C-alpha cells in the first residue's frame, strides 16, 4: 500500500506517523519457552511484527558426510507465512528468504560455542507470522533467546535493530512504510561483550558521515533491546522459593 504523496512520514516536530520520536523503538514484547516440542523457543512482537523462533539440537547430523568433524553446523531457515504480508506470499522459499537465512545464520554463529559439539547440527527456524519492516532484526533478537532457552552455550546474546533515513532524517527501527518510502535502511546485529557487529547490511544512499551516524544509532537500539532480552529470560527462569504444601 503506497503512501499518499501528500502525507509526510515525519511531521515538523520530528514526530513519526506512529507517534514515535526519531530514535525511538517500537513497543516490544518478548516471551521465552512457548513451544512444547522444540528444545528452545521464543516469540517477539515488535510494532506489528509477530515472529516465532524455535531451536532443535544439537543433534547428530545425517547424512554423516555433511557433518563437520570439529564443530556443530548451524542451519537457519527464515520463512514468511503466506498471510504475513499485504499481498499473499507463496509458501515456496523466495530468493530474499534464502539470502536472509544465510545472513541471519552468520549473525548468530559468532555467539555459539559450536566447537563443543562436533558432528552435530543445530537447527534454527524463524517463522514470520506478521511482517511490518525489520523482520530480519526481530528474527535475530528472538532467535538468540530461543538458543538460550535450548541450553546451547553462548558467549553472549545477540540483539538486532535497523536504523535508516526517512525524509532526510536518520531514524531508528523503520516500519515497512518507512523503509519503502525512505532513503536508506541499515539492519545491524550486535554482540555487546565483544563490541562486535555480527550483521550489517544497507541499501539506499547515505553520505559517509550519515553512514557512521546510522551505525551508531542502530548499535544504541541494539543495546536497549539486549536489556529487554535479559528481562524476558529472567521472567521465564526466575526461580521461585519452595512452596509449602
Amino acid at each position, binding site marked *: 500500500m503506497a503512501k499518499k504523496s501528500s502525507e509526510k512520514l515525519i511531521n515538523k516536530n520530528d514526530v513519526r506517523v506512529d507517534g514515535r520520536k526519531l530514535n525511538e523503538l517500537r513497543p516490544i514484547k518478548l516471551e521465552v519457552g512457548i513451544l512444547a516440542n522444540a528444545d528452545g523457543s521464543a516469540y517477539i512482537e515488535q510494532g506489528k511484527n509477530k515472529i516465532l523462533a524455535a531451536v532443535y539440537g544439537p543433534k547428530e547430523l545425517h547424512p554423516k558426510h555433511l557433518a563437520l568433524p570439529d564443530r556443530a553446523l548451524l542451519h537457519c531457515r527464515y520463512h514468511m507465512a503466506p498471510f504475513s504480508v499485504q499481498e499473499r506470499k507463496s509458501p515456496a522459499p523466495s530468493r530474499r528468504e534464502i539470502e536472509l537465512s544465510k545472513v541471519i545464520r552468520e549473525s548468530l554463529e559468532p555467539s555459539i560455542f559450536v566447537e563443543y559439539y562436533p558432528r552435530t547440527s543445530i537447527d534454527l527456524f524463524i517463522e514470520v507470522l506478521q511482517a511490518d519492516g525489520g523482520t530480519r532484526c526481530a528474527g535475530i533478537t528472538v532467535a538468540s533467546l530461543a538458543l538460550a532457552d535450548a541450553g546451547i552455550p*553462548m558467549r553472549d546474546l545477540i540483539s538486532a535493530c535497523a536504523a535508516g533515513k526517512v525524509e532526510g532524517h536518520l531514524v531508528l527501527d523503520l516500519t515497512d512504510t518507512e523503509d519503502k518510502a525512505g532513503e536508506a535502511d541499515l539492519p545491524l546485529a550486535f554482540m555487546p561483550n565483544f563490541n562486535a557487529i555480527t550483521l550489517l547490511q544497507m541499501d539506499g544512499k547515505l553520505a559517509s558521515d550519515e553512514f557512521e551516524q546510522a551505525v551508531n544509532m542502530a548499535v544504541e537500539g541494539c543495546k536497549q533491546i539486549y536489556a529487554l532480552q535479559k528481562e524476558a529470560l529472567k521472567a521465564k527462569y526466575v526461580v521461585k522459593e519452595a512452596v509449602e504444601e
Partner: protein
Amino acid sequence: MINLSIFYEKRQLALPGDLLAEGDYIAGNNTYKEGDKIYATRIGLVDYENRKVYVVALKSFYIPSVGDTVIGKVIEVGLSSWTVDINAPYLATLRASDVLDRSFKPRKDELPSIFDVSDLIIAKVVSYDRTCDPLLTVREPGLGKISRGQVIEITPTKIPRVIGKKGSMVNMIKDETGCQISIGQNGLILINGKTPEDERIAIMAIRKIEQEAHTSGLTNRITEMIRRKKEE
C-alpha cells in the same frame, strides 16, 4: 594490586553473557574466560568454590561421560550392533559382542530377539570422545532390558539432587515408597513399585525435587510429602 571481584551471589540467576567475575579466577562449568573476565554461557544459578566460578545450568542437555549409567531406547537393529537413543546429541552404540559371550556369527535375525526396536534398556557408557559416538555395555548386574515399571524424564542437571549426598535422597524415596529406582545420568529414571500407587507417589516426589532442586531443607519436605500421600 590484583583486582578480584565476583559480581554474583551464590544461587543468583545468571544469563548467557552475564559478567560473573573479574580477576584471577578459574572458569568452571557453563562459563568461559575472556582476558580476566568470566562470563556465563548458559542460564543457571551461580556458584563458586575457592577460585572456581561456575553455573549450575537450569536448562541443558546430557553429554555422555564414561562410567555414566543411562537409560536409552533402541532405535535401530544392525548386523552386529544396536543403535540406542540416550537423549543426547549423539546416538550410542551397543555391540552384539558385549551381550553375547560366545564368538559371534552375525545373522540378522538373532539380534532383534535380544533387544528390538523400541525396547528400553539400562546400560553404562564405556567409551566416548570428540571423534566417535558413545559406546555402551550391559555386562554389569542390574543392566539390560527394562521389562516392567515406569520411566520418567527430568532435566539432566537435576539428577544429582535426586540422588542426594551419598544417595541420601533417592534411598529415602526407595525406603518410604518401597520402590526400586534406577537413575540414568541422562535424565531418565526407572521406577518399579509393588503397586501403581507406590510408583505414583515416587514419581510425584521426583517431580517436586525437579521443581525445587535449588532450595534447602528439601529432603525433609519430600519425606513429609511422601508420608502424607501414603496416608491419603
